[in-house]
C-alpha cells in the first residue's frame, strides 16, 4: 500500500524532489501573500468594535495555526523516526523545528501587540497564552537537544521522543479557551461551525493562511535539503553534487 513512497526514503531522491518543490512553493507563497496581505491590510473592512486593529488577525492567526500544525508534522516525523527508523525523518525534524519556532514567536509577538490596545495588557498568564509559550519552549528544546550531540545519529532518538511527547500540548492549546476561564476569546475560524467573521474578512484570512503555509513549506524544504547534505556528506552523490557546483 505504501510501496510508492519507498523510493523517497532514499536521501538522493528526497533531495532532488524537495529541490523541485521549492520554486513552486516560493511562487505560490509570493502570489498568495501579495494578494492576501493587500486584501487584509488595505482592502478588507475594519471591525465594528476594534477598528483597524483587527488587521493583526491576518498575520496572528495564520502564524498561530501554523505553529501548531508544524509541531504536529514534526511529531509525525518523530513517530516515523522511532518506529520505522527512517533517517530522513531526523532531517525533517531538524528542518521543521526552527521554522515552527519562528511562527510561534510571530504568533506570540503579534498577539502581545494586539493585546495591548484591545485588552489593555501585553501579557497575562492565562491558559492560552501560557500553553503557546510552552510550545515555543518545546521547539527550543527540540532545537537545543538536536545540537547538543556531536554525533547527529546519537541525539536523533532523544529528539524524536521529545518531538513526539510534546504533541500532548497541542489539544491543550486549542481547547484552553473552552476548558478554563481565559482572557483570550474562543476560536473564530478553527472550528467545525461556520467562521465567526464576515466573508469580506474571512477570504483575505484564508489567502494569507495558505500563503504562510506555502512559505513555511518552502523554508522547510530548503532546510531539509541542507540537513540531508550535512548528514550524507560522505556519500558519493553529495561529492558529485559539490564538484558539479564548483565547475
Amino acid at each position, binding site marked *: 500500500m505504501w510501496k510508492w513512497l519507498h523510493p523517497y526514503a532514499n536521501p538522493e531522491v528526497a533531495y532532488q524532489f524537495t529541490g523541485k518543490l521549492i520554486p513552486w512553493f516560493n511562487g505560490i507563497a509570493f502570489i498568495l501573500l501579495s494578494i492576501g496581505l493587500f486584501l487584509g491590510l488595505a482592502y478588507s473592512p475594519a471591525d465594528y468594535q476594534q477598528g483597524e486593529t483587527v488587521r493583526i488577525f491576518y498575520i496572528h492567526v495564520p502564524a498561530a495555526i501554523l505553529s501548531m500544525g508544524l509541531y504536529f508534522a514534526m511529531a509525525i516525523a518523530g513517530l516515523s523516526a522511532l518506529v520505522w527508523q527512517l533517517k530522513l525523518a531526523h532531517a525533517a525534524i531538524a528542518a521543521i523545528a526552527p521554522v515552527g519556532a519562528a511562527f510561534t514567536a510571530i504568533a506570540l509577538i503579534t498577539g502581545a501587540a494586539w493585546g495591548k490596545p484591545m485588552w489593555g495588557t501585553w501579557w497575562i498568564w492565562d491558559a492560552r497564552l501560557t500553553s503557546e509559550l510552552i510550545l515555543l519552549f518545546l521547539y527550543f528544546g527540540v532545537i537545543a537537544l538536536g545540537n547538543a550531540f556531536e554525533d547527529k545519529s546519537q541525539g536523533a532518538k532523544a529528539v524524536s521522543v521529545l518531538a513526539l511527547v510534546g504533541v500532548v500540548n497541542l489539544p491543550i492549546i486549542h481547547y484552553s479557551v473552552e476548558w478554563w476561564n481565559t482572557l483570550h476569546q474562543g476560536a473564530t475560524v478553527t472550528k467545525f461551525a461556520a467562521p465567526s*467573521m464576515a466573508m469580506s474578512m474571512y477570504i483575505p484570512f484564508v489567502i494569507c493562511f495558505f500563503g504562510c503555509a506555502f512559505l513555511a513549506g518552502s523554508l522547510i524544504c530548503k532546510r531539509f535539503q541542507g540537513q540531508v547534505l550535512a548528514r550524507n556528506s560522505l556519500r558519493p552523490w553529495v561529492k558529485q553534487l559539490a564538484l558539479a557546483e564548483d565547475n
Partner: protein
Amino acid sequence: MNPRRKKRLTIISLILFGVASVTGLSLYGLSNFVDVFYTPSEVHNGKEDGTLKPEVGQNIRVGGLVVVGSVKRDPETLKVSFDLIDTGPMITVQYEGILPDLFREGQGIVAQGKLIKPTTLLATEVLAKHDEEYMPKEIADAIGKHHKPADYN
C-alpha cells in the same frame, strides 16, 4: 508490519498514552488554579464544588459582563464604579484610572484587585475581553449589535 516495528509502535503508543493521561489528570486536578479569573457567582459561592471562595482582603481577578446602566462616574475624578454579572448574583467593582477602549456596558471585562467587601472589588487594573466575532460596522448595524464606545464626559 514486521514484529519489531509493531513492538516499537506499541511501546511508543503506550508512552504517549501515559504522558497524555498524566498531563490530563494533573490539569484536571489543578483546573481551578488554571482559571485566570473568578466569575461574579464564584466570588459569592466559591468554585463549582463550593471550595476556593475568595476572602475579603485577597487579591483576585474577576471576569464578567458590565451590567447595563450600572456604570457610575465621579464627575471630578477618574473614579468609576460598575457592576459585573455572569449567570448569578453580581459584584461591584470600584476603579480609578483610564478604562480600556473596549469598555462598554454589556461588554466582558476582567478586573484585577483586592476584595474589600465580600462583594466589592477595588480594582487596580481593568482589562477588556472581547468575543471571537469580527464584522464590519455596516453588518453590526444591520443586525442591531450594540457597539457604542464608553462615554467619557
